[in-house]
């Protein structure tokens, strides 16, 4: 095209052959080059734009360079916890205590739920919402209560949106939360090892290490993981100040979260919040390794089953009906 223009296209005496510099500036190629450079520079500037609004409030250098939770030594962890407490004060105005609760030796947690007794009142979901400092705007909770047709175990037909007085005579109610699998698909798919299974059976997330890819959410067959689409909104006076790094501290935007069997309570020997909130006593919690524990008596004496056993996830959460 250019050859045509310069060689044959322009006639004799057009003057372009005498002014090569001028001609170099005005060709289509140079125009395209110039446009591409301008667009490229604009795109680059746009890509770097977040840096212009970057400040220590959003992400400090310390946050950015923080090690994985499992690689922190005691001093580093103490510094991180202190920093997180200051963040809670700054962002939410609340005085909170963030601890690092570790598993107890000789303890593996198990949970059982009596479907004959559960009436579907959703008080467990509500208690979870408050205990774990969930986002008030989305009404998030780690527990989803499914209304199921009696005689059916088809979770696909379970309905979480019911408003009539419960229990309906034709239905039974199945609260579903993290099953704390011994073979957890969510852990296997995490590309950055931000989620793992601890020695007491709890699958946890390092919220500071999670990149928010949501692979784990897709991998979980129980729909038990939640994503923080926005920065959680929690009124200052409603914040539960008893927090743990791996559990109910207020999560940052853009990370996954999940039920931890309230490890900030249960690793102190207490019952989970959902169990204490249950008005009918449908829930049983305890140490699977203790042969005298309530949970072991349920497993020994009741016909317990697990959800989606065929997937081989080996849940630590058991369901049963009274005979």
């Amino acid at each position, binding site marked *: 095209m250019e050859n045509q223009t310069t060689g044959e296209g322009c006639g004799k005496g057009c003057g372009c052959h005498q002014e090569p510099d001028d001609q170099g500036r005005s060709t289509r190629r140079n125009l395209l080059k110039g446009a591409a450079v301008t667009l490229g520079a604009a795109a680059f500037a746009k890509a770097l734009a977040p840096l212009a609004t970057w400040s220590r409030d959003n992400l400090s250098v310390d946050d950015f360079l923080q090690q*994985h939770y*499992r690689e922190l030594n005691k001093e580093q962890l103490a510094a991180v916890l202190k920093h997180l407490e200051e963040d809670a004060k700054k962002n939410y105005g609340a005085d909170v205590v963030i601890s690092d*609760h*570790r*598993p*107890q*030796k000789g*303890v593996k947690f198990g949970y*059982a739920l*009596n479907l004959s*007794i559960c*009436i*579907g*009142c*959703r*008080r467990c*979901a*509500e208690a979870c*919402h408050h205990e774990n400092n969930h986002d008030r705007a*989305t*009404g998030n*909770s780690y527990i*989803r*209560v499914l209304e199921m047709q009696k005689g059916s175990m088809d979770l*696909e*037909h379970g*309905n*979480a*949106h*019911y*408003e009539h*007085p*419960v*229990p309906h005579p034709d239905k039974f109610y199945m609260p579903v939360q993290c099953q704390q699998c011994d073979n957890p698909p969510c852990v296997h798919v995490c590309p950055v090892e931000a989620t*793992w*299974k*601890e*020695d007491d059976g709890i699958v946890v997330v390092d919220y500071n290490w999670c990149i928010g890819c949501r692979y784990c959410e897709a991998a979980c067959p129980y729909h038990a993981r939640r994503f923080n689409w926005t920065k959680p909104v929690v009124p200052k006076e409603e914040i539960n100040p008893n927090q743990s790094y791996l559990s109910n501290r207020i999560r940052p935007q853009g990370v996954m979260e999940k039920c931890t069997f309230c490890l900030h309570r*249960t*690793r*102190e*020997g*207490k*019952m989970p919040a959902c169990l*204490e909130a249950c*008005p*009918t*006593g449908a829930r*049983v*919690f*305890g*140490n699977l390794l203790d042969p005298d*524990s*309530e949970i072991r*008596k*349920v497993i020994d*004496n*009741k016909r317990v089953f697990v959800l989606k056993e065929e997937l081989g996830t080996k849940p630590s959460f058991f369901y049963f009906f*009274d*005979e």
Partner: protein
Amino acid sequence: MTAGSRLGRWMFFGVIALITLWFVAALALPWLQRERSKPGRAFSEKVIGDALHPVIIRTPEGMALVDSGKKDAKGQAVMVACATCHDTRDPNYKIDQGEALQEFHKGLNYQHGSLTCLSCHNANDYNSLKKADGQSLEFSQSMQLCSQCHGPQFRDYQNGSHGGMTGHWDLRQGSRERNTCTDCHDPHHPKYPLVLPVFPPKPVIGEAILPVDQSHPH
């Protein structure tokens, strides 16, 4: 020229060897340290004693009181002890519904199988209950009365799988409080009542909530 190229070759292979060593070290060191960085290696250092804290079973009210239907000067309902009336009246064994009475207990919602009032209430002493064998029983011991008929529930209660509780799963670290029968079950109509569910899940933006039969066309 030859010396220079030999030196150049040595330097080239030297750099290659250095980079290879770097790669091997970067792979080998984390592998050697894999035990240290495994999840959950660190346990709680808290020392827990063997002494067990108590399991406290809530006791029912010591004595039942009945609303007289009258209000005192402050607008509070006047409550009357059973013996106030029943000490001077003969029991009527035939009555098993509140409606059949002319005064008191008329609004009592009573739905408890085929039992009658005096199946559980003690006609000789209305300040106590009566077991099936005729022995009297304090109101505070009512779990014994219930468990005469509701054996499986009592067995499950003893195994810890019936009845709500609060406190500690680990009794070495703290106590536990357990409900008694009448905390959840009204003894006159023991079936757990219908309740309105709380805390409805908020729909995610874009999620269509259809009636159950329409949401799955297949």
